């Protein structure tokens, strides 16, 4: 399998067809180890291609780690996992300078944040300061320790999970930080057929062990470049801003411009996955729920998703 992508050259990555092809390869590869969750895999690929980060809100044990690892493996990238706990320190995330007695120098020991795909597990269990350390990296794409700045690898995508079953032992992410996640999705439980299939697969060796890469980090970087060039026409931009205005009208806290930008990016990536070099309103509609719902607060106990759904229903498509 390794050689499938070996001749993937820069030229191919410059067309949306190449992006679409790349995404197909990655998702087919990942689906070898993950049963079901096709949409979630696509969501992760969109996030990865749109330079975003993903928040998974799920119960433990539905395959979040496996999914993140499979993605990382598929793009021949490094995978890191951080288990957030109440006593986790910021330096446990970013890394620390330690004194090397042999060289009598401080040398930097990289934290787990230096990976292409970083899984931050149960991020809401850690105190805000530690959460902030990760979120800062997500925004800045670099780590500064003792005055030295180090860039994280490119591509860099964080997949964070939130535990929502034990709310009394968690530190909820502040809204401003939630805003930094491009998308928030749920995996949910597999259905009966999927679970049966899943159990069959893991009865022997776990297939993740034999999973190989189908792309390189360079492919992903090229895809990211291509996606930046996907056209967003004025009707589409107007549609997005009307949707945003509608959420602001109907909710206590609507979608910020940062949210609108994230939506455009995600829609661009979605268009490219569809091998289209322009965004259509369908791309926006496809992305808007997972991109916006977690950014909206109401005073009435409604979920953000209800506000988004209503905006979708009432805001006319040009």
């Amino acid at each position, binding site marked *: 399998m390794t050689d499938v992508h070996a001749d993937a050259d820069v030229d191919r990555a410059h067309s949306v067809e190449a992006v679409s092809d790349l995404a197909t390869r990655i998702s087919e590869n990942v689906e070898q180890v993950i049963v079901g969750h096709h949409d979630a895999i696509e969501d992760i690929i969109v996030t990865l291609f749109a330079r975003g980060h993903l928040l998974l809100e799920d119960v433990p044990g539905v395959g979040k780690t496996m999914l993140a690892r499979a993605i990382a493996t598929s793009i021949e990238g490094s995978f890191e996992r951080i288990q957030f706990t109440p006593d986790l320190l910021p330096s446990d995330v970013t890394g620390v300078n330690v004194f090397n007695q042999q060289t009598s120098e401080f040398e930097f020991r990289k934290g787990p944040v230096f990976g292409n795909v970083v899984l931050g597990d149960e991020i809401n269990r850690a105190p805000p300061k530690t959460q902030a350390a990760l979120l800062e990296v997500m925004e800045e794409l670099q780590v500064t320790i003792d005055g030295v700045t180090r860039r994280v690898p490119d591509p860099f995508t964080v997949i964070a999970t939130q535990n929502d079953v034990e709310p009394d032992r968690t530190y909820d992410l502040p809204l401003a930080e939630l805003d930094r996640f491009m998308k928030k999705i749920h995996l949910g439980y597999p259905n009966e057929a999927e679970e049966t299939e899943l159990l069959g697969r893991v009865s022997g060796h776990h297939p993740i062990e034999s999973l190989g890469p189908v792309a390189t980090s360079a492919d992903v970087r090229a895809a990211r470049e291509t996606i930046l060039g996907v*056209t967003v*026409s004025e*009707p*589409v931009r107007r549609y997005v801003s009307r949707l945003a205005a509608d959420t*602001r*009208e*109907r*909710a*206590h*806290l*609507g979608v910020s411009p940062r949210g609108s930008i994230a939506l455009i990016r995600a829609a661009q990536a979605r268009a490219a996955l569809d091998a*289209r*070099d*322009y*965004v*259509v*309103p*369908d791309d926006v*509609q496809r992305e808007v729920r997972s991109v916006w719902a977690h950014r909206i607060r109401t*005073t*009435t106990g409604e979920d953000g998703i209800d506000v988004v759904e209503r*905006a*979708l*229903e*009432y*805001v*006319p*498509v*040009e």
Partner: protein
Amino acid sequence: MSTESTTRQSSAPEAARHTVAGVDANVLALASTLVLVGTFLFVLYDVTNVVGRRDQFLLVAGGALVLATVVGVMLRPRVALLLTIALVGGGFAAYFLSLPTSQLALLSPTRLLADSVALLSGLSVLRLLSADVWALAVTPAPTFLAWYLAVRGRIAPAVAVAGGGLGLFVLTGDANGPLTLVGVGAGMAAIGFDSIGRYGHDGGQLDVLVVVLAAMVVLSATVTVLPGAGGSPIIPNSGVAEQPTVEASLVSASDSISVVGSISLSPEVRFEVESTSPSYWQTASFDRYTGTGWVRTGDSEPYTGGRLEGPEGPSRLVRQTVSPATPLDAMPGAWRPVAVSGNISSETLVTQQGNIRPARTIGTDENFTVTSAVPQYTPASLRRTGTDYPDDIRERYLALPDSTSDRVRERAAEITADAETPYDKAVAVEEWLEANKEYSLQVSRPDGDIAESFLFEMDAGYCTYYASTMVVLLRSEGVPARFVTGYTTGERVGDDRYVVRGLDSHAWVEVYFEDTGWVRFDPTPAGPRIDAETSTLTDARDEGLEGVDTNETAAAAAETNESDTETPTPTETANETETANGTNATPQSGLAPGLEERIGGTPGAGDESAADEGDGLLPELPSRETLFVGFAALVGIAAGVRRTRIPTQVRWATVALYQRRTDSPTDDVFRAYDRLELVLERDYRPRRPGETVRHYLAALSRVGVDERTRRVADIYEQARYGHGVTRAEADEVMAVADRAVRSRLPVVRRWAD
């Protein structure tokens, strides 16, 4: 983001405020409620304007509104309710305390109940004895409560309260059609805006509201619930045939008279009267002048037989036997009736003005006899009387509306400058009117005060105008006077026998003299009136109308042929001299016996607007009312059309059928897509607002739309969101659209495939 505005109303289900045309719907609801309260208050304002205490009323009404506004912000509903109850109780206590003791003695629970029922079944508030105090008493409570509720945002109960108040006046007949319409429309609008304020108008509620309001305006303006009832459509059916008759406007009137515009004469014979002495046959008299008409105040008592009170001075008994030729609603007789005999006597009512009237319609076979004590007087005796009038005469017969203008009073003073006694004043006014105004049945009803308009703006009018104006002038000079209706003497057909027709109906004036009682004056110029009546009768005879003649009058007419259509009635002279004793003051010319004023279709004297525009002689521009109603209808239709499929059909006809190729492939694609969407909209369903083209076409292709529509979606997306389309692609889409359209045209369909 809108933190502060949303936290403030966090209890509301939605943070967003709904607006109509940029105005907050809640504000509109409040404004509409205020209009409704305003209509309620306007009726009371009218009442107080007529009966006095207008300024106090304005104070009370304004005070109630201000109080409600203040209290609305501060007090809870329970306290406000107690306050309302206190206002109701206080108001009515004040009313009962103000009634004269004689009236108070009559009060009993049954009487109160009867009075309430009478009010609700059309007894005008103006007929209440202390209508002024009554108005002040009922004003505060509903005004306060309605506005309090509105300020608290409880629009529906507020509308119920204010609407109930207005509804009371609709039942009493004091709220006229247009005012009621405004009130009901405002109430409706308040409710509508309120629900829009609560729930928004996404579902087209605004259209529905507009349709309902327009329907209310148009229906109430054009439909009368009861055929021939007094209810007045705002738009009169124009045309001569629809003019009311003088008789209908005067004699049939029960408790009130509204002055109308053009009027006609009915030549039909009404009754024959056999009397020892000719006279004007009076049927009713009215004491309260409203500016637009006349009202009889107070309740009628049943006639219990025996002799009624006669005039204050010397009198002579006259017996009159009346044989109705058509059913009668009145009991004509000379002033002042003191006894009645015949079938109807047990169902006779005596008004507080001293008139008699039947409690039911008198059939043609029911003769009856009225005995009258006719006052005897001479000009000299009248000149000698003083001006020390009894209190009840002063209260009733000197009152004028507060709105009576100074120039009326000045003109009255001018006319009577040389007159010293009340009698001389009455003569002066009568002569002045006869000399300065022309007689005409074709007038358009003035907008404001009848007397003032007749004095200053109109050159001509008929008896109602003359008599009303004379009463107003005399009252402003301190001479008690009243407005009287009935019939003139009629055509003499034998010794002591007179045939009276509809066109003999008439209005005149009575002036009160101390020690004599009521004395008749007739300010209407007799000559022109008789001419009009005569020509009507002649015409009617020429046309061969039935019921115009009795045997005797026909014979007389045949004898006297042309010259005498107006059957000379020597009786009249006799009649005049007798009552007025030589005063030239009442030149009751011989009333053309026989002419009755024909007034066509609308019976109901209360029908004030029916004749408004009824000139009928010239083609006229539509009246303002008509234009308004037409406008309302148009707006309503437009809103209604928006709720139907008609706009789609129109677009179909104008847009879908044909498309010309342009230079811009992109535009061609848009146009072709629009056409295709119209077709699909007709055949399947319209595209929902939030639905994308791709989703729409994909959804329809699942239910059987041609697969090619998918291709259309692609090309359309390219044109709108992508990098444009080629000519070939545009042609492809146009071809699909053409085909879709043609296959749905009934004629073309069979060639298309």
